[in-house]
């Protein structure tokens, strides 16, 4: 790959990236709410791992901070918050309603991954940056897959996980392209993610109390006739 200075770390990062993308695909394709939560946690752990690897290679303290924040907010805080607010929705075993079947979803996902590489290429050609060749296209692919998850899922918890998976994708790309970022990455990760999770979680609980379901795809009172 593009980082001859750190061959071992680059190889490990590439492996992490591949697993990261697989986890994103899993969030798109899985049938159960609990499984998609677990895959999201796995994806967040892989983001942490990549941040630590890059932090070692680039000797950047900021990336360790990103790693610590990711662990705390995404693998501990968010599952805890979901359990507190809508535990019945998460822990009841049942299939998630979706707008598109799994084979077609995966086919479209493959197209999105190719698209991510096509978009990332000109950027990588313009500026060389260690690890960007691995993290930028994979992060971009995870962003597209997360957005795709929001579109095909018709329920609140999977849509929220899709949104947070998009955020994971942004950070996966971000740690490689701006490893010394002082404010955005840390503040955004530390403040923004828990606030998103809190607001969305409370909103879900309110919807659940009022409607008895979080199947937001069935909320269709508001539309043009």
């Amino acid at each position, binding site marked *: 790959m593009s980082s001859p200075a750190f061959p071992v770390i680059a190889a490990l990062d590439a492996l992490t990236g591949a697993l990261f993308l697989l986890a994103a695909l899993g969030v798109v394709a899985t049938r159960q709410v609990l499984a998609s939560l677990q895959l999201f946690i796995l994806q967040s752990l892989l983001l942490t791992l990549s941040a630590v690897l890059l932090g070692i290679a680039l000797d950047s303290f900021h990336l360790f901070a990103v790693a610590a924040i990711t662990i705390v907010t995404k693998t501990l805080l968010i599952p805890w918050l979901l359990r507190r607010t809508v535990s019945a929705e998460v822990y009841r075993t049942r299939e998630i309603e979706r707008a598109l079947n799994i084979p077609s979803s995966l086919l479209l996902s493959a197209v999105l991954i190719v698209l991510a590489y096509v978009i990332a290429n000109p950027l990588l050609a313009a500026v060389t940056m260690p690890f960007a060749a691995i993290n930028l296209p994979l992060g971009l692919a995870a*962003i597209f897959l997360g957005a795709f998850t929001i579109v095909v899922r018709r329920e609140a918890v999977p849509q929220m996980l899709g*949104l947070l998976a*998009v955020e994971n994708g942004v950070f996966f790309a971000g740690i490689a*392209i701006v490893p010394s970022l002082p404010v*955005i990455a840390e503040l955004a990760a530390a403040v923004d993610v828990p606030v998103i999770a809190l*607001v*969305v979680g409370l909103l879900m609980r309110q919807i659940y109390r009022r409607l008895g379901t979080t199947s937001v795809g069935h909320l269709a009172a508001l539309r043009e006739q």
Partner: protein
Amino acid sequence: MELAAILVLPVIASALSLSPLGRRYAAPLTLVSTTAVLILAVDVAALAAHTGRVDALDGWLTCDGLGALVLVLVALVGFTAALFSWGYIAGRAGHPVHHVQRYYGLYNLFVLSMLAVPLLANVALMWIAVELTTLLSAFLVGYEDTAEALEAAWKYVILTTLGAVFALLGFLVLYWGSRVAGLEPFTWLGLVEAAPRMPPALLWPAFLLILVGFGTKVGLVPMHTWLPDAHSQAPASICALLSGVETTTVLYVILRLFPVIGGAHGLDARPWFIGFGLISVGVATLLLIYVRDFKRMFAFSTVEHMGIILVAAGLGGTEAHLGAAYQITGHALAKSFCFFAAGMTVMAVGNQDIASVRGLIRSSPLAALALVAGGFAIAGAPPFAIFVSELVILKAGFTGGHFIVVGLLALFVVVAFCAVMFHINRMVFGIPDRSIAAPTIPTSCKLTLAFAAIPLVVIGVFVPAPLLGLLRAAAAAMGG
């Protein structure tokens, strides 16, 4: 010093609203705080128009002409909407006192997040402020706690946050580019200066990501689907803020990119501004014809106006940019007025269905008059400001040789005018189908209408010299 005070006052007002003191005094406390913020904002704007830029706190806070214009508009609508809330929120049945306290607690923080966007010098911190505008207003959108309001709040949060996360990637790439160009503080001023040295291969995707990401929050077609829901289901006072200034605040960020892209080699943002703008105006015009809910009507009109402002920015040149700044001002004043009128109409008739309202002038003359005045103001009839600003924009486009753009824009604007006035005419005149008891409209709502009408009428007839100075400074900040 004023800049810091503008950001501190709403925090205090929010804390007091949520404290035991807020049980009785949340509304007046919020009103006092927003009044103070408005006075400070006018002061800052006068200074910014005069000197070009106001700095505070070691350059962490800054405000130029364009920022000052947005700041004043947010402060003004923040004040009028607080006054309207006093009577309107107290009059909503079925809400315990702690809901009202939470309303004002969030209200002040929501206004704070919008005030922070034009003031924060660091672009990264500004992104966080934009993101917070969504998160802090989510529960205000869902305040009525009906299935429709919660559906609207859900779509609002998920789609605009998704947009903001795409924009975040855009800002990360922008930061990458600014590091390549050797720029250290990540500010708008620095970006304009460093743009010629940034690799276009980084600047261009950053621009597109931010345009599409924040365009979602502005309500540009085709990312607008959440907007008519949120802007029709929120309480009228919140709609005035969402439609009148929140969209403008985010559009401000997109307009900030214009001089950055303009400074780079071989990049041209103008076709994208004009394309997105014209599509938004066209689609909104079509939707305005078929709309059935009068609050949705004003929401679609917001999509239309955001499109017009974007087209004006894309046409380029001092005249068009002056028109854009004037249109921003006229829209914020007129749209907030329209939603106050719509809120009064809801109080009078109890629903938002255009077809069910007839002869409003007989049952509630005040609401009817307000609807007619608001309709004329927002649709762009003389003597209101939007008439003048749209003429300025069309004329600037015509002299610039953009005949097709100007022709399409003029056509859409005229059709939208007819559509809005047709619906309002239906509601206001005619014989009522059923007799409606004359509603008791709270004094604070009447006062709001009177207060909001003053600038609306005045700036259409003549532009005071300080405001003209501010508009020129804003146009200059958008770049040539």
